[in-house]
């Protein structure tokens, strides 16, 4: 199993996300050949005009959705950590949906089985990341996110120090 430190998932930077929903369209187009946000594996939340963020699967360690499935329909990819769904086993009971803290796994409106981000394995790279006009979405590991935040914080500190001089 790929270690959690090496697991890459789609992360949204709330400072950059503008709530335009292009990721939703890109996802539903890639996966379903239709423009329809309710068939997107990534969903945008606008809490208010200032708080916008796209949310999708975080590829958790010991994922609660997998543990919750009574029919063993969900497994985690050894290679990438993505959640894989066996559509023949899934009966749409929704326990995984309740178990996910992020609302990242959803019930398909027509197939009546659940669906979740698979990192666009057939396309080679997540299409939402490719399309995001604000570069708010990135395919990253937690370590890289931490690095970025750390570097950003230090830069800011030094800029402020410079400005105070």
């Amino acid at each position, binding site marked *: 199993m790929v270690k959690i430190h090496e697991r890459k998932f789609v992360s949204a930077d709330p400072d950059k996300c*503008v*709530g*335009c929903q292009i990721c939703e*369209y890109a996802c539903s187009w890639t996966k379903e050949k*239709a*423009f329809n946000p309710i068939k997107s594996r990534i969903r945008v939340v606008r809490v208010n*005009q200032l708080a916008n963020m796209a949310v999708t699967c975080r590829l958790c360690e010991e994922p609660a959705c997998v543990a919750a499935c009574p029919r063993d329909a969900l497994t985690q990819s050894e290679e990438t950590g993505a959640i894989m769904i066996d559509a023949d086993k899934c009966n749409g009971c929704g326990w995984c949906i309740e178990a996910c803290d992020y609302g990242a796994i959803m019930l398909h409106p027509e197939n009546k089985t659940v669906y979740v981000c698979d990192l666009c394995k057939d396309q080679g790279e997540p299409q939402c990341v490719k399309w995001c*006009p604000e570069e708010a979405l990135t395919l990253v590991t937690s370590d890289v996110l931490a690095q970025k935040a750390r570097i950003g914080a230090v830069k800011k500190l030094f800029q402020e120090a410079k400005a105070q001089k």
Partner: protein
Amino acid sequence: MIGYAGRILHVNLDTGKTRVERLSEDYAKKYIGGIGLGMRLWLDNTRAGVDPLSPENTLILVTGPISGTMFPTAGNGHAFVAKSPETFGVGEAVAHGTFGAEMKRAGYDAVILHGKSEKPVYLWIDDDSVQLLNAAHLMGKSPSETEEAIKEELGDYYIRVASIGLAGEKLSRIACIINEKTRAAGRTGLGAVMGSKNLKAIAVRGTRDIVPAKPDEFMDMVKEFHERMKGPATQKYRTLGTPENVLVHNALYCMPTRNYNNAHFEEADKVSGEVLNEKFVAKIIGCSSCAMRCEHEVVVPEGPYKGTMTRMEYETLWALGPYCGIGRLDTIIKGMELCNYYGMDAISAGVVAGFAMDCYENGLLSRQDFDGLEAQFGSSETLLLVLEKMGKREGIGDILTDGVRIAGQKIGKGAEKLAQHIKGLEVTGYDLRCLKTAALGFAVSFRGADHNRHGAYAFDVKGKVDRLKAEKGRGKMVRDLEDTYALIDSFIVCKFSRGTYYKELEDMAKLYSLVTGIEMTAEELKRSGERINTIARLINIREGFSRKDDTLPWKVMNMPIPDEGPVKGAFVSQEELDLLLDDYYESRGWNVEGVPTAEKLNELGMEDLIGIVEAKKEA
């Protein structure tokens, strides 16, 4: 049909009954969607001469053929059309956000609202299920509060809502219809039409797939336009935004100030786009499917209005600021928030406030009218008081909230001359005395004083013509832009993206064909643009308009610009206006009275409407 939902929903508010009608391909191709299709449907469904606030005035909600796709900016617009309670001619207003896309996914190109509900209701469109639900508990709430309450009670965060505030409920003729807290179908008072129907809100959830006719080519075009969206054509909107205009217009002495008493504001540098962005802009957000994002969200960081959050654009900033002589951005932002709270067109509301201050300075209104305030230009307290009183229709607000034309008539004693409007609609932030191409565009605009029907100011402001000169040739310039703008609002794409259509109509025709599968050429599209302007003209003619209504505000024609500077003394004379009108009518193929000829209607495939121009001839 592809691209189009192919369905028109009729809702009878008297009985609660609904029915679905097919959209004909003929109408789709001729009138496109948005305001074009909306105006045609209004004409078909409404008799001549209705009182705009009577149940008989149908209110049309309409999307465009591109709505619901991921084409940048094109996926998200919607328009409202009805007879305007301000102009008594055609009223229409466009808004963006996510509401239009949701309506398309619900399976409707248009919703036609007939009659009047006995009790306050809201319309709940849940795909094929359409219901009128009790709205008694929502009355008095702001559009933002209404939206929250409806999402809560219907139990879905992703439902989209367009609603009116207290101003619409009180039939304020400057009331608007707001979706997603900050997006307004603002102009021509359609919030009052909605209020007159006892309709508080329209909530929509749509779950259908949207698939363009030629998916691969369509996606290639989307990719291309995503790149264009990041280029110079949209840079203004992505950076300072439209408030950039403050300093530009001020430098050109074309920013109407203190109710058109001046064309230049000495405190402009305090209310500039630059200061707004530096001190107040907290975030820039985007509408559904937009790759540009332009919506500047501002927050007041300190002082009496600390924490006030709203969207800010040039027009509203100008109306609530320089037009009232106010040089404080925090006041302007608070004023904008009040307009959104009560659901009023902030352009008109600001212009009314400036008018009220002018009346005070001329002794036509007294301190008593303003609760004891000194209501001179520049008074922040007066602006906020007037906005609140108009929102609630209280005291002096009862008169003012019906717009400057009606208020001017009611106040009398010369107040009519202080009322700066065209066809009853308040002016916008372009001083027409020194922008003569714009002056023509404003004079002939079918919804009254407005820059958004033609954008003819661009020629003047960018120096492509002598802006102080009225001359032949301006008619065709205005006409061509009007055709394009009518198409933009019928597709519906965002005007801020207009620069990304490098080949203009050719690009738009290609987009239309790829989405709908209906072959469209640039020439046919041009004719549709002409047809849409013509149908608007026909509606106005049917409702009693004539050449005399294609005029300019009193001060534009009678009070030369007094400010020392490049355009001192400029104004528009009747001779100049007549020259411009003759030139414009001729370029449109209309007679000298501004009435389209029967030949022109035949040429445009509008022979079924010849009766309207013939009735005019007999009258």
